[in-house]
């Protein structure tokens, strides 16, 4: 990633990665998302797969403030780093979250072009939530459990996506209350 800001370097480090301020910002956002993922894993779930998806709040805010590319970085970093944290890297659970994340990012890429006067973060969030569950169910059906019995669970997952999508969208909108009113604070 290249921006006009000069690279930040650490003279003590022998291996020097040229990181920009934007990289640091992406990493910081991904860390916040990661924290929410950890928090969410502490919440017991009645059905595997039905989770609030709190980390998507971060994705929504980043999408609204910094655009789709940064949102994609933050989300994919969160998925990979989260799987390393829980020890599920390259395990089925990792591919489930990856499929969900990729599909919801694609949905967001389309949904963010909806007229902003009419459609806000709540709409974005609902679209992303439905895409997320569609991606996960596709992986489950095509790879893990190729049995049409899982069709019975689709309404449960869809209802959860609708509810949690709406709630996450509202939370994201709440966090962005002041976005239009003041100058965006300069990012260090």
């Amino acid at each position, binding site marked *: 990633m290249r921006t006009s800001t000069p690279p930040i370097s650490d003279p003590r480090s022998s291996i020097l990665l040229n990181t920009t301020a934007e990289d640091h910002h992406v990493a910081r956002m991904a860390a916040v998302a990661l924290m929410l993922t950890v928090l969410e894993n502490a919440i017991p779930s009645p059905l595997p797969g039905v989770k609030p998806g709190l980390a998507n709040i971060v994705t929504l805010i980043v999408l609204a403030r910094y655009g789709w590319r940064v949102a994609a970085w933050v989300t994919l970093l969160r998925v990979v780093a989260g799987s390393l944290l829980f020890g599920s890297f390259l395990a089925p659970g990792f591919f489930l979250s990856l499929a969900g994340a990729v599909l919801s990012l694609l949905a967001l890429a389309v949904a963010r072009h909806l007229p902003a*006067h009419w*459609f806000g*973060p709540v*709409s974005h969030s609902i679209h992303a939530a*439905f895409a997320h569950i569609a991606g996960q169910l596709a992986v489950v059906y095509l790879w893990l459990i190729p049995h049409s019995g899982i*069709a019975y669970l689709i309404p449960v997952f*869809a209802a959860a996506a609708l509810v949690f999508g*709406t709630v996450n969208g509202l939370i994201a909108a709440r966090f962005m209350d002041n976005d239009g009113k003041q100058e965006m604070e300069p990012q260090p």
Partner: protein
Amino acid sequence: MRPATLRHIRPGDWLTMSLGCLCVILIAQCVWNGGMADRAIIRSGGKVFREVPLARDQQIEVPGPLGTSIVSIEKRRARISSDPSPRQYCVRQGWLQHAGEIAICLPNELSVELTGNRKKYDSLNY
């Protein structure tokens, strides 16, 4: 909901939410309401031979006056896959997957009927 929360929902968001609700309801109707069968009743000689769930794939051999017929259950569907009767009508009927559907083999006195929460038809006449 507090007015502060409602302020964050733009007009189009209501539309998205209603469409989402509609989607969930339609999917639930389609998946749960009898459209999909969950059991197969196999009758032989007028009596219930076996009642099996569709959830597990299996093959069942049913003896009849002409010989043995084979009923296959696969991916929540059922069919008579092999039958000794001369015209093979029931075999050619293929997969049954909705509640109320039935395959009958008269010569071998065998029938396979699917049931669910609700039957799509009360009766079928040919």
